[in-house]
């Protein structure tokens, strides 16, 4: 089990950031992802694996200011 934006989400082997974003339906273009407080660059989403127990934060940046 992992934590995604404060919600519990099931973990499984081979869970990449790309896969997690699909599972959560986070299909937004402008996104920041942090795992346990560490920033993950977009080009690393496919090969960065989430480990069981990780705390994942996703921020969706939107226009307006």
């Amino acid at each position, binding site marked *: 089990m992992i934590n995604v934006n404060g919600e519990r989400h099931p973990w499984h082997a081979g869970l990449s950031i790309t896969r997690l974003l699909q599972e959560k339906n986070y299909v937004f*273009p*402008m*996104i*920041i992802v*942090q795992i346990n*407080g560490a*920033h993950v*660059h977009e080009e690393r989403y496919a090969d960065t694996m989430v480990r069981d127990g990780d705390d994942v*934060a996703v*921020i*969706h*940046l*939107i*226009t*307006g*200011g």
Partner: protein
Amino acid sequence: MKIYLNEKKVTVTPGAKVAELVKKHKPGADLCILNGFPCLMEHTVAANDRVVLIEKGKRPSKRELEHLLAARHTPGVHARLKKACVGIAGCGGLGSTAAMALARAGVGTLIIADFDVVEPSNLNRQQYYVDQIGEAKVDALAGNIRRANPYVQVVKHRVRIVRQNVKALFRDADVVIEAFDRADQKLMLADAMLDLLPKTPLVIGNGMAGYGANDLLRTRRVGNLHICGDEASEAGHGFGLMAPRVGACALLQANQALEILLGPDPRITRSEIRNPIPR
């Protein structure tokens, strides 16, 4: 006993009332500020109190004014904010509003960066005036800050903020406020800050189009990113930005920056009446 009267240390008799101080030190004064808060002439002062006496409607000298501005601030807090430096990335609806509030609150140094000029379409939510149309935003904003608090040091950069200059612009800031309009720019700044100035907290404004829905404007923290806004209401054609909601988001960002600089305010408590405390 010793007190501070208009920021000077003076000796007064224990039990002295404000009215007696007026008679002796500033005849004609009709307003007393005690430790940053107006008080009555009948109030008895205590040792180490900070008392400021002014004559309403009379313009004080520049030197006196700085003391009076400092006096109205919460003591201790003012001294710490005066040493602080906040960076403002973008001087539009979020940045101009946050900058004015932080200047009034007494933040010592503000780094403001923006490339644009003031346009009529800005006036519906940005802290500029009709007579400033055509001025560079950083110049117009620096002028408005000077009129609100002349003792803030404003470092102006009229540049387009890009990944390549983020570190040079904001390396001296204790906190940076993200105040762009476009999502791609917000992402650029967040990425750059996380990579290049990872120890500097960044306060992001995210989702504030439209009007109303106060309670959706929240703040969450993710590591060194602090996100203010509803995180959902994206501005676009037919869904415009308006001064109250954008401004509320900007001032939540400014308020969050103060909390980052000072730590949580120990004097703020939950409402007993709204959130009843079990007895």
